[in-house]
């Protein structure tokens, strides 16, 4: 076992973890943050996307130790019903949500894009979301939602 420290959604944690555990396991099993989903377990689908030190990563491919001393944002740290993040609001308004399993990862990839680049081109939006798969194939509405969120932010 090993001890890691990290800040998740603005809260500091000191956790005892098995070094084999992945960041995904830490978030879901230790912290009960179940909004981070496991879709493929091999970095293909992006359902487990979180923001780690300002960058999106697949939490299924990050070991707990690699997250030591880092700052993490999960979907639970982005908006709520009283004050949704513009991306979340746009996803609902545009109808970019179907089964919803990819949605937390999509929202985090989109949020991170807009944090860095508030006025992205269509191509930049496409690239930013290229690591998140949607099988209901609502890509068109997802891209539109991100665009709308960017416009609202202007």
């Amino acid at each position, binding site marked *: 076992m090993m001890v890691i420290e990290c800040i998740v959604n603005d809260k500091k944690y000191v956790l005892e973890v098995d070094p084999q555990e992945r960041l995904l396991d830490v978030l879901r099993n230790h912290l009960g943050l179940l*909004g981070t*989903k496991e879709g493929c377990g091999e970095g293909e689908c992006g359902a487990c996307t979180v923001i780690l030190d300002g960058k999106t990563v697949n939490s299924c491919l990050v070991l707990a130790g690699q997250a030591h001393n880092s700052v993490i944002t999960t979907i*639970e740290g982005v908006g709520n019903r009283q004050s949704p993040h513009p991306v979340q609001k746009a*996803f*609902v308004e545009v109808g970019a949500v179907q*089964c*919803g399993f990819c949605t*937390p990862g999509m929202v985090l990839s989109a949020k991170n894009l807009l944090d860095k680049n508030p006025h992205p081109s269509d191509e930049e939006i496409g690239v930013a979301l290229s690591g998140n798969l*949607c099988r209901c194939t609502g890509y068109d509405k997802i891209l539109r939602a991100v665009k709308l969120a960017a416009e609202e932010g202007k």
Partner: protein
Amino acid sequence: MKTEVVGSRALREDSWGKVFGQTKFPADVNLPNQIYGVVVRSPHPHARILNINSEEAMKLEGVAVVLTANDVPHNSHGVLFRDQPVIADYVRMVGDPVAVVGGETMEIAREAAERIRVDYEILPAIFDPEEAMKPEVPPLHPELQSTNVLYHLPIRRGSMEEGWAKADVVVEQVYKTQHVDHAFLQPEAVLAYLDERGHMVVQTATQYAHYDRGEIAHALGFRYSQVQVKTLAVGGAFGGREDISLQIIAALLALKTQRPVKMENTREESFYSHSKRHPMTMYYKTGAAKDGKLVAMQAKIIGDAGAYSSWSINVLRKSAVHATGPYEIPNVEIDSFAVFTNNPYTGAMRGFGAAQTVLAYESQMDLLAKKLGISPLEIRLRNCFQVGSITATGQELTSSVPLDQCLAKIAPYFRREVETP
């Protein structure tokens, strides 16, 4: 007609929970004291199980139980026919469950599953449906059919002799499609437990909570009223969650251990365990007269049902019914077959048998147009269903057949050069 519903925009109520990551999918529910179930699956497509040795698995600390076929009260399930074992003692496809482990943690259960030794008598397997349908090939389900042909639907209209006599051009081709996995983004997961009444409660993502309920009750020997299936958020399905996956196995583990049971497929296990889209081989012969009118079509469609029936009958029925496409043909002979093989079992998937035949009948239209020297659009306009058309099955279409309007809309965008013959 004016209504407040049609044409008005509505926000999906469920999307709020989903954008905040609050929505519960089956992997997101847990109970105190739950054990974790892992399935051991067959690596062989056709085999008899001679022996299962779980001694090494049981030695591992934290292993609660190992279940095999003998532990299932009524060992069968299936949406049309109960021809699929809950836990197999006779294997008909790679991925058939042969044993189930319950452990205190997922890691222990996985480790124990690797320690289970299964002795198989490997039997000859058959993967080609056209080979499998021959009468001399031993059937995989003798209790259902005396051959591997699960289903044959013949459709006849008009006279083929007259039809071919009128044909100025004929196109004859074979088309094949492949297995496709739904790959819904959320792998199968279940939480099963006995409630204070001794009733079995199963929380899962399913397309058929009511079917699941009956299947679980049957397999466990419970009354229907003693089983409750709660559908949580479904992370994509596309037909792939119509058949039972882990529901009965989890319930059985809960019954045997009297503890809540959690099961979660990895992506790989998910691929091994659920149905696929039917691969089809489609022999098509279509004839048209000089004026571009279709006069005859003969189609033989062979669908690979794989190891179990699932929805194969309904799927191949749909293929047959859609075999002409949206085109009126006076003389038609269609034969559609669903055939058992040792391939992964096939079932419902988006389109449900109607998707495969599109490849065949639309390709035939393009090839006929080329032979006739008219445009692909023109041949479709001359043959498409309209109000009053009669389909191959004899149905008269009485309303709402706007295919001609649809084709008219795309006509301006259609720029393909017409090749002269």
